[in-house]
């Protein structure tokens, strides 16, 4: 009798015991949590920093009319500095617009080919190549714009300067195309195969199946991909700085040199006195860019998430 009961109590584990595994588990949980929220903290931190730096300008020298509607960006004028970003916005918008004209057909075309036509090794190779293209540093693209596109445009169109909207638009379009291709391809792959089978069994040709069934079913994802490309275009700095000609100008044709918002910050920030109105004006441009790209990316993300859910 004693023997039996002794054995039972002896075998009962101590339920309050915490061994090393328990502590490691807790620590890892906190670490992962911290790294998880750090991204959010950093983004909020950056936004606050940029806002504080630009805030002085917003309070004192900022005039909504002048800032958004004047094409004169003359912050270093000794008598009367003006801070108008209209020409810079026109520069960014025209380059991004042209870039999308270049990138959308390219990326849609290659996404359709990779997702719907290519099979086996071809498909895998192409996917790797596209990822590789997306990893080319933007300064390299800028270099291509300066040293290859520039003389090419001068030769082809007989214009005095080859650093202009056309140059930057093409370069930026080629830069944005790989990431857009990737996302559009994901969107096409997410279309269930039974839709294709249904349409094909009804007698659709390959192209009819894609055009009438796959593309409409994937349209949200495709739109998301294009919007991310637009976001990329707005935010791109180095290649645009090198290929646009960096001249403040309200463009009237694709052969005009322009200057982009991002390139202005990159080129001028290092040469201004910290805290001066010029310095603060540049940060205000930063706030503006940040807000726009944030909205574009958020919209794109929501659209893409939308399809995943349904």
């Amino acid at each position, binding site marked *: 009798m004693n023997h039996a009961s002794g054995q039972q109590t002896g075998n009962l584990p101590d339920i309050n015991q915490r061994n090393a595994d328990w502590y490691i588990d807790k620590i890892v949980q906190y670490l992962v949590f911290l790294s998880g929220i750090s991204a959010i903290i950093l983004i909020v931190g950056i936004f606050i920093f940029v806002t504080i730096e630009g805030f002085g300008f917003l309070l004192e020298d900022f005039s909504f009319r002048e800032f958004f509607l004047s094409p004169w960006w003359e912050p270093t004028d000794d008598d009367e500095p003006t801070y108008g970003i209209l020409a810079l916005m026109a520069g960014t918008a025209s380059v991004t617009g042209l870039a999308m004209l270049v990138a959308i057909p390219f990326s849609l075309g290659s996404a359709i080919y990779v997702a719907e036509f290519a099979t086996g090794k071809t498909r895998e190779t192409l996917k790797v190549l596209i990822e590789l293209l997306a990893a080319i540093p933007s300064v390299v693209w800028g270099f291509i714009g300066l040293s290859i596109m520039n003389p090419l445009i001068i030769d082809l169109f007989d214009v005095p300067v080859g650093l202009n909207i056309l140059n930057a638009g093409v370069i930026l379009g080629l830069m944005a195309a790989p990431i857009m291709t990737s996302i559009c391809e994901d969107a096409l792959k997410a279309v269930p195969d039974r839709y294709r089978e*249904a*349409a094909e*069994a*009804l*007698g*659709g040709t390959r192209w*009819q199946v894609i055009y*009438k*069934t796959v593309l409409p*079913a994937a349209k949200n994802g495709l739109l998301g991909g294009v919007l991310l490309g637009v976001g990329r275009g707005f935010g791109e700095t180095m290649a645009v700085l090198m290929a646009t000609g960096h001249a403040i100008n309200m463009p009237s044709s694709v052969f005009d040199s322009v200057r982009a918002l991002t390139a202005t910050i990159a080129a001028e920030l290092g040469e201004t006195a910290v805290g001066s109105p010029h310095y603060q004006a540049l940060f205000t441009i930063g706030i503006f860019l940040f807000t726009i790209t944030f909205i574009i990316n958020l919209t794109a993300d929501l659209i893409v998430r939308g399809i995943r859910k349904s």
Partner: protein
Amino acid sequence: MDSGIDMNTTTQTEIEANTELAIGTSALNLWYGDFQALYDINLAIKQGVVTSMIGPSGCGKSTFLRSVNRINERLGYVIINGSIDVFGNNIYDPEVELVQVRKQVGMVFQRPNPLPTSIRENILFGHKLHNRDKKYSRDDEDEIVEESLQQVLLWDKVKDHLKRKATELSLEEQQKLCIARLLPVKPRILLMDEPCSALDPKGTAAVEELIWELRGKYSILIVTHNMAQARRASEECIFMLMGKVIEHTDTADMFVTPQHQETADYIEGRYG
């Protein structure tokens, strides 16, 4: 659902009177890569009759069905020799246009697969593909939609919300819609690959009833793993095993006096 045996006897005379073949195959062999799925299939499937194909999983019945409209070729690694004649024309002839084959041979899949558009658009999808050069007014199209949905006994249920997304319908209704959208293309053969396996008993009964309705107007070839269904809903029956056709007779005879031991064993449930 009326008793299938009853109807078999009534249609017997029609079958004999009408000897033109809907599908005829000779020495059909099919490989998926290295794996041979069909061996020397020689079948003569009559026009205007509901023919069912039964057999254990992997016996090749779906494979055969999917080669009659050449949808198998989507896979890309299918090799076929021999021939399949659809109303006397070999559909594996190199000259044959795939789209024309699929116009003649409609297919209903195991899982209902309506397109993610409206009910109306689903019905008109095939019609629009094949009549691109002709102009149809909205009234003509409405008529086509109504007629097709009437035929599958779905019109009364959906006539007030034709703009609703087809994917929101119940599975049974989706499957009926998938049959309905074949009709405007005017196929002569309907292939059905286990059309009821995703449906509940009520839905199954409804779709079987529909198959009976369509018999005569179309030659229907239906693959099923459900022997009771083959017995209820078909006039002729084909039993396949390991990629070969074992027996092909009237459904009534197959289930009462099977000619082969394998058939008898399968019907009695000794394997499968």
